[in-house]
């Protein structure tokens, strides 16, 4: 190994790094070469001096505090911007230009979006309310009492089925102001798309001949022309030959009663409650 290679090898040797492959050979050369010993010695002294002077830089007083202050300010600004950006994004989400893919005029977009959402919400609410009203609203009354007698008495008995009960909360109850001991079982009949309960009964006229009659029980809500009477035969029965009919409402039952016989009002009087 010559002097140049030995000095170059030692030049970049650092104890912390195994960077010199031929360090042992170079050290041996330097030990044997007075010129290299002098040169390497001078070089080491100069390097030590350069290192000390290079590191000897006065740091300005307060620099650390200024740096920390600047960083804190930057963090505060970033946090503020992040929160503003989050609020902006939250308020302008989906308001995106189809061409550019960037948010466009968030304030205007927000107003439009608010209006659109309000309209949609109102529409949904109205639809819901309307639907619910359709589902829960009581059906409109469809039955005219003056026509009931003819409709029921002219219907064929074989078309009727046993009555099971009214739809909704109305319960079938017999009148208390009329003698119901002669009533047969109730049958269901549809009048103007509404269910009514029809009882048949038979009474005897003065000659002892059987006379058929009907007691029709109708939910109050299904009747258009509600009667003002509240008991059987409280007023003069209506006689439309050959039928005699009386109608009344009994308080607390929610039902309209129609009693009719093929005959005059004297036959109806046979249906007055018997004294106990």
């Amino acid at each position: 190994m010559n002097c140049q290679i030995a000095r170059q090898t030692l030049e970049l040797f650092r104890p912390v790094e195994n960077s010199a492959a031929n360090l042992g050979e170079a050290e041996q050369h330097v030990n044997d070469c007075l010129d290299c010993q002098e040169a390497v010695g001078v070089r080491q002294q100069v390097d030590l001096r350069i290192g000390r002077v290079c590191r000897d830089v006065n740091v300005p007083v307060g620099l650390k505090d200024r740096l920390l202050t600047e960083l804190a300010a930057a963090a505060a600004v970033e946090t503020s911007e992040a929160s503003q950006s989050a609020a902006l994004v939250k308020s302008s989400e989906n308001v995106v230009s189809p061409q550019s893919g960037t948010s466009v005029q968030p304030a205007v977009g927000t107003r439009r979006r608010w209006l659109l959402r309000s309209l949609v919400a109102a529409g949904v609410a109205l639809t819901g309310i309307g639907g619910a009203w359709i589902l829960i609203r009581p059906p409109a009354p469809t039955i005219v009492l003056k026509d009931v007698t003819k409709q029921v008495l002219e219907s064929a008995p074989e078309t009727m089925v046993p009555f099971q009960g009214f739809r909704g909360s109305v319960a079938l109850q017999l009148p208390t102001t009329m003698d119901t001991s002669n009533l047969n079982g109730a049958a269901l009949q549809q009048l103007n798309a509404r269910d009514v309960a029809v009882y048949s009964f038979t009474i005897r006229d003065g000659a002892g001949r059987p006379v058929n009659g009907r007691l029709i029980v109708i939910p109050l809500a299904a009747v258009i022309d509600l009667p003002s009477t509240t008991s059987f035969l409280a007023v003069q029965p209506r006689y439309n030959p050959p039928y005699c009919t009386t109608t009344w409402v009994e308080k607390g039952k929610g039902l309209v009663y129609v009693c009719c016989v093929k005959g005059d009002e004297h036959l109806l009087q046979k249906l007055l409650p018997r004294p106990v």
Partner: protein
Amino acid sequence: MDQSASKLADLVERYYALLYRYAYRLTGCVADAEDLTQHAFLTAHAKWNQLQDETKAKSWLFTIARNAYLKELRGPACVVTATLDEFPAPAPESGTADFDGEQLQNVLNSLPEEFRSPVILFYFEEFSYKEIAEQMNVPVGTIMSRLARAKAYLRQRLTAAPRPAAVAHRRPAASLSGSGSISRTVPHVRAP
């Protein structure tokens, strides 16, 4: 964000003085060095998510500072061109090592940045060759070559030459590159 701010504050505590000294030796100017140090930490704050290995935070900070120096502080007006012909002949390795910080800074200022940065980092004794090479983004062999030449240049200028005049550092320095011309900075020098 609080965690990164805390870690960055810890980095400030540990490395602000070292980074400032490097910035000063790099720029030769107190004001520029302070600006560069602040810029490096603010950039680190802004790009904290890009730091993949926190054990390399020190090297990362120094890389940021150097990149900022190259990008922000080295303006076109400061760039001069020197040729290989201006490089003085090597001096014998003899003489006395009697120089102060200003003289060292003058000689450092005369070095092109690609030689100045590694030699500063070498004398700081804070980074391995590999770490210096990574900061400079060049192979380790290139760094060792540049270091050998830069160290020889410093020794030659600081031991053989007489005490330089006050304006000597403004003279364009010789190129240490292999051939052709190079661009380098001539920053304004103030006392630290």
